[in-house]
């Protein structure tokens, strides 16, 4: 299953500058594994030992996976995943 993943600006150094990449898997965890294979280093930026890092949110469509099934959230063809990190700039 091919899922579109939106890569935020701070992580694009790991995707060769691409703002959207495709990954396969039937759950968010599998997608992250596939992303790591294709773009080594990405998983560490998204996850820590406890799961998704607390300053990053992963969305399937419009919904935060913390309010779905977390990393076990199922994804299907046509779903889009957004990685949304905390951003602090304002000046």
């Amino acid at each position, binding site marked *: 299953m091919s899922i579109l993943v939106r890569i*935020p*600006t*701070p992580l694009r150094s790991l995707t060769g500058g691409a*703002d959207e990449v495709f990954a396969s898997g039937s759950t968010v965890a599998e997608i992250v594994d596939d992303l790591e294979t294709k773009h080594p280093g990405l998983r560490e*930026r998204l996850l820590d030992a406890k799961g998704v*890092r*607390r*300053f*990053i*949110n992963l*969305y399937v469509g*419009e*919904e*935060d996976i*913390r*309010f779905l099934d977390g990393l076990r959230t199922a994804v299907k063809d046509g779903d889009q995943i*957004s990685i*949304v*990190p*905390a*951003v*602090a*700039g*304002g*000046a």
Partner: protein
Amino acid sequence: MPTTYSDLMVDVRKRTTQLPLEELKQRLDQGDKFHLLDVREKDEVRAGCIPGAISIPRGFLEIQVEQRLPDKNAPIVVYCAGGIRSALAAATLADLGYTCVETANPGFVRWKELGFPIETPPNLTQAQRERYSRHLLLPEVGEAGQAMLLKSRVLLLGAGGLGSPASLYLAAAGVGTLGIVDADTVDTSNLQRQILHTTSRVGMPKVVSAAKTLKDLNPDVHVIEYPERLTSKNADRLFGDYDVVVDGTDNFPTRYLVNDASVFLGKPVVHGSIFRFDGQVTTFVPEKAAAKMGIAAGPCYRCLYPEPPPPHLAPSCQEAGVLGILCGIVGTLQATEAIKLLLKKGNSLVGRLITYDSLNMKFRELRLRRDPSCPACGVHPTLTGYIDYEGFCAAG
């Protein structure tokens, strides 16, 4: 066809239903649902009107009524000073297809004599009516809304990239008091995006420069300068007097401080943040603030991001760069949210995060939910005081 004024009035009286003032008062007291339409001139309305009335001077009735009262079957009671203009207006409404119109008999003069409740709409000066005329034409703002704005107090955190466009539009809109918190001085490298400031003011404290610009734009606005950095020590004092906080700060420690103060003190925060070509905007209305504002509470910043990133994973603000114009887009979205909160109009961004990608010109919307395990506003909050996080890019 009537040929004289007397004939006309006889005809109009026949075609319209009269409503005694006592009965009108009873309906208002009972909370009956109907539109109360005041067709007197604006200066008469300004001297006092029946509470809840919509004002359309009779001369504008045909032009404006279908826009203001689109449901032609909704019950309408029209009044004027003595009952003549309202009867004529009621006949006009019937001609326009309104099916349920009554005219109050006699009218406002008698209503006042009877000691029935009246309200005096806010009195804007002639200069203010001219300045805000495009707001006054909007039914969602009008004189009452403009007066609310003039009485409102907004605290802007940062007179930089986001604070510049936000404060300019809030000042232009006539928000009566703008507090500006910023400890920095104007630097040449700010001018690519911080449109409050000018080349001739390089080296000047940003709050001083901001106050100059804003007062020159709109002398109605009282600008309060806070040449200091928001800290755990001054958060309570700075937030205390304000209705809405616009967060345009530039670092994670302050963002979390803003959030925790907003939760503790019950202040709505309009959040904007920027990074290179990307922006995020949302509105946080924590429970205490929602209770005061009479709206539903939403998530807080910690529901979204429970903890700040460690410094080595947080991109440094100065190194990252930012498209100057991005600040304009995000800051004006923040100003829009602030104005809507102050006017209590429209749908705010509570529970929604707008992400803006200027390179691809895409706005996206993500749902934000309250996290029951949130350390600040969850079911069992663990946060009891302010936390001073250290070690981020502190300089803007």
